[in-house]
């Protein structure tokens, strides 16, 4: 019983962190129908940015309540800068090209970013210890113990998803984003510049990934150049599972994936070595019976 409860909590923490990446996937797909496979790497470079500022620029005795915000701001800045550069250099020239072109480009950008960090970041050929920028110890809830970093992730991720949802529903830019998602041509007739909306979408997604990267680092205590790819795949799966284009769906999908991964790792045949098999089994199952995902709308073919 206590193992079950513990694994549920572990799964939800992982899910919350994946959710922060999934939001970027789902928003971007909703607006430009682009599956930005480099988005996982945007998350990864954010983690390395935070690692860098903490180890190289902050004094060793910086208290966590100073270090954490500085690391978050740095991670967001690095993630956003990389995302904007990728959009400008790799995706914008392909606008209007066949759908496959940006998809293949995204895969290439993903490999490029991984290799650039691996080759040029000191020590990145092996996993790096991430700075402990949050109080140690854990919260005890009956049979369950949760690291404070996990509590933080569980609090912050849904909050950011809710804030994003509100922003998209209420703000002027959010309205422009929804208009562009629904009917790009008519959105242009409203005076909406599609390039600006797309750029803003990259920026928002990257900022969330940057925050997620710091939360991920302090919780799992180490990072490597593959975290973007691994978690990016789960995040993309979460976005599809939840209904691509849906913000709430992405978070819901991510939490489900965290749960399945954690519970399957504990109980299913093959254990933690094969936990991801069950994640994709869940994806296949959901897609068979509900192809639009949990909260997605059925795809309509445009006349």
């Amino acid at each position, binding site marked *: 019983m206590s193992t079950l409860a513990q694994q549920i909590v572990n799964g939800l923490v992982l899910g919350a962190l994946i959710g922060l990446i999934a939001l970027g996937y789902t928003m971007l797909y909703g607006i430009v129908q682009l599956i930005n496979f480099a988005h996982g790497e945007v998350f990864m470079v954010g983690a390395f940015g935070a690692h860098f500022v903490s180890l190289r620029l902050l004094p060793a005795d910086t208290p966590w309540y100073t270090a954490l915000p500085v690391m978050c701001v740095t991670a967001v800045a690095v993630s956003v800068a990389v995302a904007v550069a990728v959009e400008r250099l790799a995706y914008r020239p392909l606008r209007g090209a066949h759908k496959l072109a940006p998809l293949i480009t995204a895969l290439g950008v993903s490999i490029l970013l991984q290799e650039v960090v691996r080759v040029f970041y000191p020590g990145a050929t092996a996993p790096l210890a991430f700075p402990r920028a949050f109080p140690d110890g854990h919260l005890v809830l009956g049979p369950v113990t949760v690291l404070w970093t996990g509590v933080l992730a569980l609090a912050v991720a849904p909050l950011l998803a809710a804030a994003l949802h509100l922003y998209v529903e209420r703000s002027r830019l959010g309205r422009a984003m929804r208009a562009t998602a*629904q009917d790009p041509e008519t959105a*242009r*007739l409203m005076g*909406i510049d599609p390039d600006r909306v797309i750029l803003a979408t990259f920026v928002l997604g990257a900022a969330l990934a940057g925050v997620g990267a710091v939360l991920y680092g302090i919780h799992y205590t180490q990072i490597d150049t593959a975290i973007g790819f691994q978690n990016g795949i789960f995040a993309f799966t979460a976005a599809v599972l939840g209904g691509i284009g849906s913000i709430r769906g992405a978070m819901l999908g991510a939490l489900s994936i965290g749960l399945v991964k954690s519970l399957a790792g504990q109980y299913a045949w093959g254990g933690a070595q094969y936990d991801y098999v069950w994640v994709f089994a869940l994806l296949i199952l959901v897609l068979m019976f509900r192809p639009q995902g949990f909260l997605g709308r059925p795809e309509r073919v445009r006349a």
Partner: protein
Amino acid sequence: MTLVAERLFMSFGGLLALDGVSLTVPDGGVVGLIGTNGAGKSTVLKAVSGLLRPHRGEIRLRGRPIHHLPAHAVLAAGVAHCPEGRRLFAGMTVEENLRLGGHLRRDRHVAKDMARVYDLFPVLGERRTQRAGLFSGGEQQMLAIGRALMARPALLMFDEPTMGLSPIMIRRILDTIALLRNQGTTILMVEQNALAALMLADHGYVIDLGRTTMSGPGTDLLADPRVRAAYLG
């Protein structure tokens, strides 16, 4: 002149869609484009609003060239395009659609203009929080017109505003356009219903195979035997 288009050429995949169309819209005037399906009427409007770029020719709004501008900048310059098929944001509310119409406006009169749209079409005001997709075709057309008005355009363009509507709704929409005309709005409209278009328009152009084949005051064109034979049955 509000709008001057000179010798527009455009082709799609080797097919000539515009073959030297020229037209002018005077300040406060209503200009109607008539012609058969595929004559190039909608293409003219799309060229003006920047959705399509003419290969050759020039378009000026109040003397300022706009043919090189992207669509969002053409709206900023003062042209609102109420597109064929209405193209509302079906998942959004009436109010959100109107706000999108006034997306670029930073002045303080947006709320006043929205109230004016609700005065013009009370049904929209009563159902302002409902999704646009739930409305009938005629009501959707009203919303599309209201949305275009929210931009406070120097030139308002309508593409087939009565298409697919019931006779009562056609009357209602045409009356609204007449009302806007009487208030001094400058209008360029494409309408398959040639009789309705020419009754409303101060000036009409007949477009055929991407060319302007005839032009003149609406009433003159209505009386012209060639127009009567070809477009009025």
